[in-house]
Structures are given as C-alpha cells and as structure tokens.
C-alpha cells in the first residue's frame, strides 16, 4: 500500500516536471508568435490605445494610492531608524533610493500583475471558452495579431510609466511625512537626495527593471489566458496561476537584475 503511494508520488513528480517543461516550450513559442504578429498592432495603433486604457489608465488609482502610502510609511520608518544615528537629514536619500531602485518597479509590478494581468487572463480565457477566438480564426482573423499582440504591447508600455508614477508619488509621500509632518529640514531632504540619486545608475536601472517586469507579466497573463481550459473552472484556475506565477517571476527576476546592476557597490 505504502509502496504504491511512494511510486505514485514519484510518478507525480515526473508528470509535473514534463508538464512544466512542455508548458514552458509552448509559452516560448507563443511569445515568439506574439512578437512576429506585432506588426499588425503597430499598423493599427488604435488597438494598442484601447488596451492601454484598460491595463494602464484603470490601474492608475491603485498605483498612485499605494505609492503614496508606501512613501509615507517609508518616511515614518526611515525617520524612526535614522533618528537613532542622528542622521535624519538622510531621510530623503533613503526614501528615494529604496523607491527608485526596488520598491517602485517591484510593488508596481505586483500590483500590475494582480490588477491588469488577472483581467487579461480572464478576458482571453473567456474569449476562448465562448469560442470567440475560434470564430476569429474562421473569419481568417489571426487572434494572436488581433487580440494578444495589442495587449502585450500595451502592458509593456504602461508598466514603466506606472512604476515611474509609483516612485514619484512615493517620494512625494515621504516628503509629506518627513518634511511637512515630522519637520525634517526641507533643504537637506532634497539636496542630499539629489546628490545621492544618480540618473543612470538608479533611475534608468529602475526603468529597465520595470520594463522587464512588464514583458514578463503580460507574457504570463496572456499565455495563461490563451492556454486556459475552456471551462469556468479552467479560467478561474488560469487567473490564479497568472497572479501567483507572475509575482514569483517578478521577485526572481528582481533578484537577478539587482545582482547584475548593483553588484560592485
């Protein structure tokens, strides 16, 4: 009895592994197809604009509000810690660097995955379940060119913009708490921040990070939707997988990118 259990669990591991490799292969082919069919969506920018509205504009509120609050919390916590060393004037540096380098891209990416990524998966999964994608193919319209590629480019464009807004809002939140509420000297808050934050090293690297996260999130969301079993259960499972997988991928990619970008410092 127990022997059977052991064998079954080993078999499960094998099945899970081959399945994961297979899905990764399909996902890569899907990604290449999306890139190859992107020409249509660039010739018809209207399609991208429409998706920018759904994935970008509608994510604005959650991004801006979370950015503000993350910045305000950083202001409180940073002040509390820096006070022990008598260097409250470095509060601006702490808030700006942690937002621009890490929190901006990563938290904005996590929010984007759960706000826009899940919506993309659900939409495409339902399109597949209600056979809209098959109907398109019947009319000789390529669903990848018409449905997938515009969403992909909209996600890739909006992610860096959202991360930049998140960081800017966070710095403003840190300023509100640090300078307006607690009373850190305004001059040293901004001047120390400006002398410590480098445009290429910090801000551009943050933008590159958010760009990479944008590609990863939209790729995962679109693939999960496109690959979802055409049932209610399948779509709900795919939506969950989108959020879980893209969150893990963001954190893993963030570690890799950070170790490349900030190694020698």
């Amino acid at each position: 009895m127990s022997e059977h259990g052991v064998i079954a669990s080993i078999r499960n591991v094998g099945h899970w592994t081959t399945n994961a490799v297979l899905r990764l292969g399909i996902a890569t082919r899907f990604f290449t197809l999306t890139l190859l069919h992107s020409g249509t969506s660039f010739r018809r920018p209207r399609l991208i604009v429409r998706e920018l509205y759904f994935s970008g504009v509608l994510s604005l509120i959650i991004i801006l509000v979370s950015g503000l609050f993350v910045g305000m919390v950083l202001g409180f916590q940073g002040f509390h810690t820096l006070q022990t060393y008598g260097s409250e004037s470095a509060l601006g540096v702490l808030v700006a660097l942690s937002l621009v380098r890490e929190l901006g891209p990563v938290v904005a990416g996590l929010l984007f995955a759960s706000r826009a990524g899940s919506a993309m998966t659900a939409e495409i999964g339902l399109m597949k379940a209600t056979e809209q994608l098959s109907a398109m193919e019947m009319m000789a319209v390529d669903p990848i060119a018409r449905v997938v590629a515009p969403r992909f480019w909209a996600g890739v464009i909006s992610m860096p913009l959202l991360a930049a807004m998140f960081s800017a809002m966070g710095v403003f939140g840190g300023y509100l708490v640090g300078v307006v509420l607690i009373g850190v000297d305004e001059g040293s808050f901004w001047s120390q921040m400006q002398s410590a934050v480098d445009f290429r090293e910090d801000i551009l690297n943050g933008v590159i990070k958010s760009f990479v996260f944008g590609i990863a999130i939209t790729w995962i969301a679109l693939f999960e939707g496109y690959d979802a079993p055409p049932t209610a259960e399948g779509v709900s499972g795919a939506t969950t997988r989108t959020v879980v997988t893209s969150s893990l991928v963001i954190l893993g990619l963030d570690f890799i990118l950070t170790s490349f970008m900030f190694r020698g410092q």
Partner: protein
Amino acid sequence: MERSTLDVWVGLFVCAGIGALLVLALKVGNMSGFSAADTYRVKAQFDNIGGLKVRAPVKSAGVVVGRVSDIQFNNSQFRAEVTMSVDKHYQFPKDTSASILTSGLLGEQYVGLDAGGDEAMLKDGDSITLTQSAVVLEKMISQFLYNKAAEGNTSK
C-alpha cells in the same frame, strides 16, 4: 465619441507617466545639478584615500565646488591619483592643499580644498602637490597603543 474620450485618457496617462519620469530625473536625481556646469580638471595624489568614491563632493570652506571624477592607482609612485572636476566659477591658487575629510562621524568622505596664497591660479590639467591622506582609524589606534607602550617603558 466613446473612443475619443478613451484617447484623451490614454494621452493623459502617457503624459503623466513621462512627467513622473521627468520629476524623478530633475527633482529626485541630479540631472539638473552640478554636472551640467563647465568644469576644469585638477589632479592630486594621496598616500591613502580611505573610502573616497568617484562622484564624491569636492568642498572648499564647506561649499561644494566640484566632484571627484576619477580615482586611479599610480603604479610608478604607488599612490592614489584622484581627478577632480571643479566648477569654472571657482578659481583656486596654485598652492592650494587638498585633504580627504569625513562629513560627520560616520558620514561620506569628501575632498576638502584649502586655498593658499599664490598669485597664479590652478588651470585645467594641473596637479595639487600639497595633500593630506584620509585618517584610517586602525592606524590611529595602533599608533596610540604604540605610544602608550613606549611611555610605559620609559617611566619604569
């Protein structure tokens, strides 16, 4: 009709995103800062630069007058060669001395310039000969202990 309002929102969104990037670049970063000004380069050799880094400030009388642009090891003299970019608005005499100082107890290190009395001014590519190295805590402590031990021997 529905589409045009959608376009307006997307336009606003993209503008806000680019605006946020500009704010980060100009207000948070130092794009607007010192680097844009005209500078001249001055070299100085130190026995030990401690923890000095590229882009550390160069100060005179507490005012930032430039930045460290390059740090090299001079293999013929076995000393550290620090290149500084100093703002053209600030001219210093030839016999100006440079020392590596620390802001606060645990703060960042910077190069301090003390003006001399020479008539001629430093030009682009000149070197500062009077330099003072960074204070290395371990050396100071060992010197202190050594002196203490020496004192103990003589008093016996």
